[in-house]
């Protein structure tokens, strides 16, 4: 364990690796998602109620569960939006309740500055509420009392509305979680390769050779180095998960532990990749060149920076040969399903990549001095 401890101590003393572990990933995430988090509670919705009925008020209550509701007049909409006092405005037109009771088609006009991520969940809430109201209205057959009783029951049960909402919103929040994992993935690759450069430096300054004159096998040395790199990547990962979850309030899928598991497997791939590079090249400069030639395309083609679907098909096919692609596939599956096994195929491929890289990296040198 001496090599592991020593390497670990030295990596934590190094400013660059410390930045890569503790500073850069949270900063990137913070810049992308904003401190304080992206949740429905942060959106302020301007509500123009021209109908002034109990139904309209109920809709307001439903909205209040998900957003800050600010009553206002129609003429103020554009002013409030441009001043960013509200992120979204919603108009309940007069006659809204009447139309619902008659079972007619209703549409609420909504305004927002940009197609913001925040507005969509609110729209979904509104839509599912009006759909529910319509259903109840049909059942009530125009009877006002029956309608409101039915609606109250409906809201108490609430189940259907909830499921509808979570399903709809998940698409969006899952994307955010996936981009967070993409950013983490890039940082993991960089950290693994930086640690590899550290390893090569030990070869250049001959401390590696000196260590090999001690009673210590090459296998033990390599295992300890792998252990050390894995440990440092796990620290980085854990930090990112904690910060995403508790500081940035990011949604990390149905089952955070399963997602963590996927990233642990990717950490294994990153470390193995570094070890393979270390055995292929001789100097830190060669490693640096190779690393920058490989990591950026791996990140881009693997979908760590943007969804793979937006790339030309040919690039998507090339991506199939990169571990990053399979990591993102696994991430996307696990975020939605919460089940580690759902991504079994992708994990298998990732482990295969790790195995191949490890085999390349553990090529034993007979002549250590060369």
């Amino acid at each position, binding site marked *: 364990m001496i090599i592991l401890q020593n390497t670990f101590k030295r990596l934590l003393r190094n400013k660059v690796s410390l930045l890569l572990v503790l500073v850069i990933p949270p900063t990137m995430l913070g810049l992308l998602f904003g401190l304080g988090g992206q949740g429905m509670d942060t959106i302020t919705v301007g509500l123009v109620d021209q109908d002034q009925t109990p139904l309209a008020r109920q809709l307001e209550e439903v909205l209040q569960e998900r957003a800050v509701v600010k009553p206002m007049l129609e003429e103020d909409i554009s002013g409030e939006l441009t001043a960013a006092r509200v992120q979204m405005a919603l108009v309940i037109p007069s006659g809204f309740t009447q139309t619902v009771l008659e079972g007619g088609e209703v549409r609420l006009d909504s305004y927002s500055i940009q197609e913001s991520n925040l507005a969509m969940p609110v729209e979904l809430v509104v839509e599912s509420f009006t759909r529910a109201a319509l259903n109840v209205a049909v059942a009530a057959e125009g009877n006002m009392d029956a309608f409101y009783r039915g609606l109250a029951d409906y809201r108490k049960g609430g189940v259907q509305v909830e499921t509808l909402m979570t399903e709809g919103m998940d698409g969006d929040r899952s994307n955010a979680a996936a981009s967070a994992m993409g950013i983490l993935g890039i940082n993991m690759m960089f950290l693994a390769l930086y640690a590899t450069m550290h390893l090569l430096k030990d070869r250049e300054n*001959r401390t590696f050779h000196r260590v090999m004159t001690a009673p210590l096998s090459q296998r033990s040395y390599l295992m300890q180095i792998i252990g050390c790199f894995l440990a440092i990547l796990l620290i980085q990962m854990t930090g990112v998960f904690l910060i995403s979850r508790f500081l940035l309030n990011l949604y990390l899928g149905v089952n955070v532990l399963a997602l963590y598991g996927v990233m642990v497997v990717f950490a294994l791939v990153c470390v193995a990749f570094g070890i393979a590079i270390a055995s292929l090249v001789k100097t830190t400069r060669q490693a640096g060149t190779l690393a920058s030639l490989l990591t950026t395309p791996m990140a881009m083609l693997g979908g760590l920076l943007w969804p793979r679907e937006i790339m030309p098909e040919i690039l998507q096919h090339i991506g199939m040969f990169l571990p990053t692609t399979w990591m993102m596939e696994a991430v996307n599956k696990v975020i939605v399903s919460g089940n580690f096994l759902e991504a079994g195929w992708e994990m298998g491929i990732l482990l295969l990549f790790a195995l191949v890289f490890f085999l390349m990296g553990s090529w034993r040198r007979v002549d250590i001095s060369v």
Partner: protein
Amino acid sequence: MLLELEGLVKRYQDHLAVDHVTLKVKEGEIMGLLGPNGAGKSTTLNMITGLTRKDSGAIRVFGKDNELQGQTIKKDIGVVPQEIAIFEDLTAGENAAFFGRLYGLRGSLLKERVAEALAFVGLSDHEKQFPKKFSGGMKRRLNIACAIVHKPRLIIMDEPTVGIDPQSRNHILESVKTLQKEGSTILYTSHYMEEVDEICNRIAIMDQGRIIAQGTSQELKNLISSEEKIDLTLSEVNYTLVEEIKKLEGVLECHLEGKQLTVLVRKNSGLMGKISLIIGRSGSDILSLQVDRITLESVFLTLTGKSLRDAG
């Protein structure tokens, strides 16, 4: 025998770096391996420490074959590499402690030994400092400290005094002698004949992969006891001069280095007159003249036909 090399061979492509080296080192002695750069000294040492694989031959350390019992042997060897191999991001104390731990030292014993090793090389006051700020000599000394924390039976030193100030060099030479007094056996490699002559009990002279002579300093000098070395400093130099002197009956070797002319002649050959005549004719004056006692340098010169400094 503490260390035995037998017919050791190492080939790099078609270049014989080590050519059938046979060498025996007795317990408690300082064995010097003297040779110019590229002679094959480091390659020989690397085969002993297991860094380089031998092509053929046998290595026995403490009576054990180094291929079969490498890990056992390594515990009792301390290696001072030719390059300064220390961690720049660890303090002097941490460096020594790391290597001590590699050899199994722990706890209070480790602390004690680290302090001892640093004191031994005169770096006690720098224990908490990073080697980045050290002078070349201090780094060399730390390089040695890291090899002796575990008090090895055999210490292998590969040119431990290269490129340092005379003070650090003397310090190192003294400490090598102290290590011997404390019971260690030392295989000491260098291309400086003076220091090998000063501290080693026995010396092996190596050139182009081969050991061309070995024995005590006196035994080696006796090899050429029938010779005399004349050192002359000239006002002018002239290469035909060297050729002419070489043609004289009784001159074994003649060699010009800057304005320094070294002539090796058979003892009592009375050639001084003829040599000064040739020099006079060439239009040069003799600024100083010294008839030297035989040094290892002249032994090397006689055996290889080249100066130790020029070879390699």
